[in-house]
């Protein structure tokens, strides 16, 4: 008994700090969610009533609708590209020792370090250079935008898959080989299934990172085209009605859905 009484203050403090952390994380999300239903003409407290009109308004605006579709499109392509390049890259980095290994690893990680606005400018200038030399236009095109987003998403896939590969017991792969599986079959039937949680998580993060990116996309979208974050920024320049909260709510719901869906297939807590 004495132990539990003594432990009580510690436990209370623990629960309080956990509660506080959750509050800080969730309060802005809840606020945005709440505001999106306000009848007020500008975002302000207290609410003068509730309406779904802002959701209808968001959908009726071409910028948001097209931006949403474009962001979805780019996000999916970035995810696929990030996995197609990132998984083999992680395999090479985790399993082989070759010249320039450290350099390649650092290059793949660099999008995490370089500020997005700088990277966006750099990629834009790079595309213009390419166009000058080869006549291939990348700036202001969908392929150019997707390519930049693949680079943006790569560090997540590479880091997660590499970490997972390091934890894989090599003897299990050797067991497959002694049982008659060649290198390709071993990879396909044993290695990849063993790192599946990391691959799924890498894909998820790639999608989210691409879906919410603003800085890079600003430089790379074509004239008149915009991703959802760009549409939000543009709209904010002229109006501060709750439409913006409605759009953000939809964005939050989509990402939450992606997280929950992923968690059904692989326990995300097992990846981290």
């Amino acid at each position: 008994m004495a132990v539990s009484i003594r432990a009580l203050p510690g436990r209370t403090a623990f629960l309080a700090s956990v509660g506080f952390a959750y509050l800080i994380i969730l309060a802005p999300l809840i606020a945005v969610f709440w505001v999106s239903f306000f009848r007020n003409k500008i975002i302000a407290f207290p609410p003068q009533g509730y309406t779904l009109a802002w959701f209808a308004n968001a959908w009726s605006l071409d910028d948001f609708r097209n931006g949403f579709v474009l962001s979805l499109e780019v996000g999916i392509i970035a995810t696929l590209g990030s996995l197609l390049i990132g998984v083999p890259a992680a395999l090479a980095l985790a399993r082989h020792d070759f010249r320039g290994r450290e350099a390649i690893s650092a290059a793949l990680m660099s999008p995490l370090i370089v500020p997005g606005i700088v990277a966006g400018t750099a990629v834009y200038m790079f595309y213009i250079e390419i166009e000058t030399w080869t006549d291939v236009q990348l700036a202001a095109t969908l392929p150019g935008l997707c390519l930049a987003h693949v680079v943006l998403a790569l560090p997540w896939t590479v880091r997660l898959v590499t970490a997972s590969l390091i934890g894989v017991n090599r003897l299990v792969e050797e067991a497959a080989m002694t049982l008659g599986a060649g290198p390709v079959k071993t990879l396909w039937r044993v290695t990849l299934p063993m790192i599946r949680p990391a691959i799924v998580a890498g894909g998820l993060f790639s999608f989210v990172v691409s879906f919410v990116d603003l800085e890079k996309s600003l430089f790379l979208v074509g004239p008149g085209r915009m991703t959802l974050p760009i549409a939000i920024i543009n709209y904010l320049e002229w109006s501060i009605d709750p439409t913006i909260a409605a759009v953000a709510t939809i964005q939050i719901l989509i990402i939450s859905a992606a997280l929950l869906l992923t968690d059904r297939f692989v326990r995300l807590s097992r990846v981290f």
Partner: protein
Amino acid sequence: MAKIALENLEKRFGSFVAVESLSLEIADGEFLALLGPSGCGKTTILRMISGLTEATRGRIHFGARDVTGLPPYARNIGLVFQGYALFPHMTVAENVAFGLEMRALDRGEIGHRVHSALETVQLAGLASRLPRQLSGGQQQRVALARAIVIRPDALLLDEPLSALDAKLRQELRQEIRRLQRSLGITTICVTHDQEEALSLATRLVVMHHGRIEQIGTPSDLYERPASRFVAEFIGKSNFLDGRVVAKDEFVTKSGFVFRFQRQSARASSHEASSVGFRPEKIEIGRARNAALANHVEGTVDAITYLGATTEYEVRLPSLERLTVHAGANPVEPIGIGDEVTLSWSSEATFVV
């Protein structure tokens, strides 16, 4: 199933020689144990036979087939890893079926063989479990079933029982033995556990620093060790330093004269060597047993009760110590500080 022949097999890692020019033949259906302390090269040999490690030099034959240059997946071997290395994402049945699927057998045949392999290792009821839902002993059986179901030319076991507790180890030892006999499969088992090697194998190879120290049956190694290393590694022994003075006579540095019958090839006469005898071959009592050739007197220093036997530490007048294992119920009670006479035969005495 086939005879396995290793010819001048060698493995170097940089300048380190892990296995030095080793030649060995394992007969069809034989159960051979590679025994030695860690780092003696025994696992490297197993990995070279399986193809997971490339040999620096030498050749490996399975029957008439030269497999030296073949990758592991083309060798047809069953390897049971230390720690089992089961596929964590596959059920027990899928684990066992894997090797058969790689051989592109038809589904009916695979199902049939998986079922019978699981029955052989008494796991038929657990076919749909995942490895992490099994106990250590059950995982071991799955690894065994996975290795034998492909009907390999050779079954290779790498410290197969080291992760299990003592009771389970004994049980599985019996099972491996029975399985190996009924399948008649050529088997090589790597272990550092002498008890495991002695009880499983029909022939043992004792390794030391990448070289073969001695090859023989369990009783060969125990009764006629070829070197002090073998005598010390397998069972317990008493040793006294000295030299051979006649065909069957050894004089210790402290002046005792012992008669012996076995002398290893390496211990040549008149050079410094050791005389050895096993603790359980010694009779301990107040009077000498005149029927035995060797005698020495001393004082009991310590007594340890071990259940089936009792261990006596006996100090000789020369201050050397001998260990004696005697039955737990001696004819005459012996206590610490008692003067005793130790007697043992010349057959039980070897020079290394």
